[in-house]
Each structure stands twice: as C-alpha cells, then as structure tokens.
C-alpha cells in the first residue's frame, strides 16, 4: 500500500498537465508561457504538457487581473479541473491586479475567488520562473493528494 502511494506521489510529481486560462491578460504572460513549450525551454522533459481541456489538467495556470466578464469562466473552469489540482497565478496581474488596480471592470485579485497555490510575479515573469512555479505547484499537488472532503463536480 505504501509502495502504491509512493508510486502515485511520484507520478503526480512527474506528470503535471497544465491548462492555460487567460482572464483578461495583456498577452505578455501568455507568450512567456508558450515560450516554455518551445525548444529553448522544452518543459516536456519535465513531463509538463499543455492540455486543451480543463478535464485533463492538473494545474490551472491563470494569467490576467480577472475582469468582470471572465469571472464566471474562472469559477466554472476551476470546478472542471479534477482533484487533485493546483493553481498557479502567472504574472503580477492575478496577484495584485498590477496597473489595472482600481479599474471598474477589474474584480480581481484572483485569490478572492479560487485558492491560489503558487504566485509567479513579474510583468511578464521569466520563462525559467514559470517553469519553477509549475514544478512547485506539482510538488504541492503531489504532497496534498486528493483532499478528504473533495466532491466531484455536479453534473450539468
């Protein structure tokens, strides 16, 4: 049993699938995230891969200061990611709303709506910092496992 638990821990650590969610970002952080997939940084050697569907993902990478229009999407997509899951806030915007703070259309920061595990500040952050952040999130996710009170998302 212990062996199985260790195998599961290692697999979660070695195979983080990420889902990229833009909540009104200026596209700067998004470009830096995509750079991580390119030959220069190649995150696939760490087992990280970008998924198109939140259902397949483990780590939600959120960019942008959370605009009023995207708030519902953020909540929906967070609930669609299956447990165990972790959230990485990429860039300064999801953490502090950055230069957009005080705007009437910004309802952030992100941590008011969903629990954030790792902040990667920067405007935009360096790809190395993003990779380190995703790895940190994978470690948190593997250590935490499936929470006791976690329930599956209710049917549509």
């Amino acid at each position: 049993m212990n062996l199985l638990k260790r195998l599961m821990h290692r697999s979660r650590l070695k195979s983080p699938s990420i889902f990229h969610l833009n909540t009104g970002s200026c596209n700067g952080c998004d470009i830096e995230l995509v750079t991580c997939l390119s030959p220069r940084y190649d995150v696939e050697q760490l087992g990280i891969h970008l998924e198109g569907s939140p259902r397949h993902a483990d780590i939600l990478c959120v960019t942008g200061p959370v605009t009023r229009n995207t708030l519902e999407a953020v909540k929906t997509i967070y609930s669609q990611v299956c447990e165990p899951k972790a959230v990485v806030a990429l860039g300064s915007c999801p953490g502090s709303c950055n230069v957009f703070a005080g705007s009437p259309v910004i309802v952030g920061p992100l941590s008011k709506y969903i629990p954030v595990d790792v902040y990667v500040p920067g405007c935009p952050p360096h790809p190395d910092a993003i990779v380190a952040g995703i790895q940190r999130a994978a470690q948190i996710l593997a250590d935490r496992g499936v929470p006791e009170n976690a329930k599956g998302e209710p049917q549509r």
Partner: protein
Amino acid sequence: MNASLLIHFLLFPGLLFAVPASWFYVWVERKSIARMQRRIGPPLLQPFYDFVKLLGKRTPSRHGIEAVLLRLWPAMSVLSMVGAIALLPVFPGGRGFTGDAVVLVTLLEVPSICFILAGFTSGSIFGEIGAIREAVLNVACNAVFLLSIVTIAVTANTFQLSGIAGVSWNPGHWIGVFGILLCIPAKLRFNPFSTANAEQEIYSGPLTEYAGAALAMWELSHGLEWVALTGFVATMVVPAGGAWWLHAILFVAISFVEVLLLSTFAAATGRFTLEQSIRFYWRWAAILAVLAVATTAYVRFLS
C-alpha cells in the same frame, strides 16, 4: 481453452508484452517528434507516469446511461485491441490462434467506432465535431485498408492469418503492405491525419469530456493500437522459417522501426484538412489499391 491460446492472450504478444510495449511506443512517438523539433523530449517512463497519475484523479460524478456508456467505450476499445494483438500470427506453423483476417480487421475497427460513439455520448460540441471528423476519415481510409488486405489475401490465396503472414516476394504482397502502412496514420489519428483530435481547433475531440481512469484507458487503447497495427505489418514482412524466439525478436524489432518511421513522418508533416485527407485516400490511394486488387486477382485467375 488450451495453454498456447492463454500464452498468446496473457503473455506474448498479449497483455504482458503489449501494455509495456504500448507505453514504449508512445514514448518513442513523443521522443522522436521532440528530437525532430530540437527538443529533449519526455523521459522514458513518461507514458507510464501519465497513466498512473490519471488513475489517481477524482472524476466528475455522472448518472444514468451516460455514466455507463462513457466507461464502456474505452473498456471495449482496450479489450478489442488486446484481442487483436493476441490474434497476430507472430509464430509460424499453427502456434496460437488459427484466426481469420476478417476477425482481425473487425477487432481493429472497434476502437475507432468506440471513439466516434464516445464523442456523441459526451454531449460536448467539440466531441461531436471530432466524432464526425473521425467517422468521415475512417470511411475514407478503410476503403484502402480493406483493399490492401484483400490484395494480400488474393496473393496468398487464403484469408487465414497464418497463411498471409510471412514475407512473400510477390509484388502484390508488398503493394498490400504499403497500402496498410499508408492507412496507419489515419487509424492512429496522428499528423497529417490528426483532424479528429486536432488540439488547436477542437481541444481533444471526442475525449474532451473524459477525465481520470477512463481517459487513462483511452491512452492505453491508443498505445495498444500502435502495437496492433505495427505488429500486423511486422508479421507480414518477417521471413518464414527459423526458431520461434527469432520470430519474436524480429516482430519487436520491425514494429519498433515502423514506429520510428511513422512518428518521424508525423513530425515532418502538417495537418491536412478533412477534404484533403479524403482526397488523398479516395483519389490517389484508392486508385492504386483498386489497381492492385484487380491485377493480383487477374494474375491469380490466369494461373
């Protein structure tokens, strides 16, 4: 049920060989695509880690017939693939199943049909689009696939798998093998025929709504399809005669070379649109296949 049949199903080329081999082939596919793009690529155990991780995910709760069907399709797909792999005539001379090519072709079709049904069952718009694309592509490539098998069968004058296995220097045999190789990219849904799961357009196609263990089964099924289809071609180019262990080694070696060739081909090509794929199969490949069947049948009729 005799011992040889059990060995085929459980040991080689069945479960004990096929499951690790499927992870290995998927790794070779990902690694060679990465190397072609000048990346380092995933570590050797990556497909295994992905599989175990998915088994540990908490899946969304579903109710009713949808819950049953969404679990049924990947299970059926995996089972039929294990059956198809066990049918492969790896060893010469009556060892294992003395199956018919028709059974093998039927079993090879099941994952594709399950994939289409999964897309419609999931109720996701991306799933439905992916399912329609897969259905159209499947109709397009199957004409060539079946005609190629018929060409080989006519050359060997039998539909028995043990009869069509083993290399033959008849040109009809090689045209048939080439035709099957042409169909493998469409059957495995990789470039340039990856329209059904085109991730930049429709996310994961029919698998968009899948999560956790069911998704893990789909990934296993995809790996097993690699083993079954490359193994099917491998059995037809292994020379007849020789010891059984030599056949086993050649079977694995030739399958590996095919995986390497096909993934290099996938990395080197872009994605066709659906129309281009159909045009490729129905205009060019199908004409060749029909000519091949007609000439081999004519030669067989004359002799």
